[in-house]
């Protein structure tokens, strides 16, 4: 079991954008690499398009940190290529993505309060 699972959540954030988006996508269920890439591209209007190298580099790091794990459940072979690897979010991954979202929310609130007080 990776050592980082026991680390304080605060030590694990902020997350790189790719990692945050991958975790967000996995909140909805298991995904394979290409599905993650397409979903993230769609969600961000093409602003974040993960190349295969960056995507699997992030996946490799997230597996090591214990944010995600590889899933043994395979879909129906008629529906998908069985050579694909599927990933799912772990409990730690959930806590981390929630903490990152909270951090961002605080940041946005702080920025709004500052910017809101300035004349337009």
């Amino acid at each position: 079991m990776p050592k980082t699972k026991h680390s304080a959540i605060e030590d694990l954030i902020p997350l790189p954008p790719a990692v945050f988006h991958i975790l967000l996508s996995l909140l909805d269920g298991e995904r394979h690499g290409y599905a993650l890439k397409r979903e993230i591209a769609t969600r961000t209007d093409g602003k974040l398009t993960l190349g295969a190298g960056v995507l699997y580099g992030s996946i490799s790091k997230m597996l090591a940190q214990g944010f995600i794990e590889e899933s043994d459940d395979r879909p129906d072979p008629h529906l998908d290529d069985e050579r694909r690897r599927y990933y799912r979010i772990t409990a730690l991954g959930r806590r981390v993505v929630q903490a990152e979202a909270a951090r961002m929310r605080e940041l946005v609130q702080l920025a709004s309060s500052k910017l809101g007080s300035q004349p337009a």
Partner: protein
Amino acid sequence: MRRSLRLYRWLLRLYPAGFRDRYGSPLQQQFRDEYADVQDRRDLLRLWARTLADIARSAPRQFASEIAQDARFAMRLWRRRPVQPLFAIIALALAIGASAGAFSVVNALLLRSLPFAASERLAQLHMFGPPRNGFHEWRQQSAYLADAAMYDSLEVNVEAGGQAARMRLTETSWNFFTLLGSRPASGRAFVAGEDDPGRGDVTVIAHGAWQRLFGNDPRAVGSIVRVNGTPLTIVGIAPPDFDYPARTELWTPTTFDYQRIPKTGSVVMWTSIGRLKPQLTWAQARHAFETEAAASVQVVGNVSNAASSKFICLHLRSRRTFAIRNE
């Protein structure tokens, strides 16, 4: 598709082996998926631009990540068994030190050239010496040497610039610097006739000695130094890296005028150096030298000198290659 996939597979070699083994298959699968969306040539170009940019971004990151991972693993091991890495570090330090030391010696002796023009063509005439009287006639008539110079070295007392010092003086024939192809950094070298007995009243000073005694003052050229009490005029300053032979700091053209510089109790050995004639090989020159040395024995009758006469290349690197060629 097949060509593109083959090229992509080849490009995956840019990733570390561990990453490639773990994710090579899904990476190729994703490339196939993206290729399936390609409609025309423009899409294909875009796909390749994206793919190359992705590899350029992610491959260095993966290398850095693997190195960091290896370092963390090594540190954990070291903490657990601190003695073994300590031995490894000591062994490495000793090995690196020994290698650096050996290279310094090899570099100084074999690789770096002497600060002379075409130093691989310079020879030292060991034991057998040309005649001191009529030396210049001998060198001009030599069958195997284009030029030759003679010198002897001794320790002397020097007074210059209000200071006194013990220095190594080399008495030379006038063509010493000309033969070696070394021009003084400032002033001039010796000129023909300056080694005639009764004349040698000039000297060339080493760069380091000039800095030490005259504090880099260019007016040192033209000033007087006293060598064992004999006044000599500095006519030149040697180049910075020139101290031949044996860390010499002063040169005078007095080798044929033994009494010119008073000497106390030291035995002076004369040495001859020469430059091989062009187009002559070392083997040919050595043969000619040995013939001449043997002939001089018949005249002089000095058997021991002839037996140990040697014709040695001044440059150690060439001496070594010469020795190999003759094995």
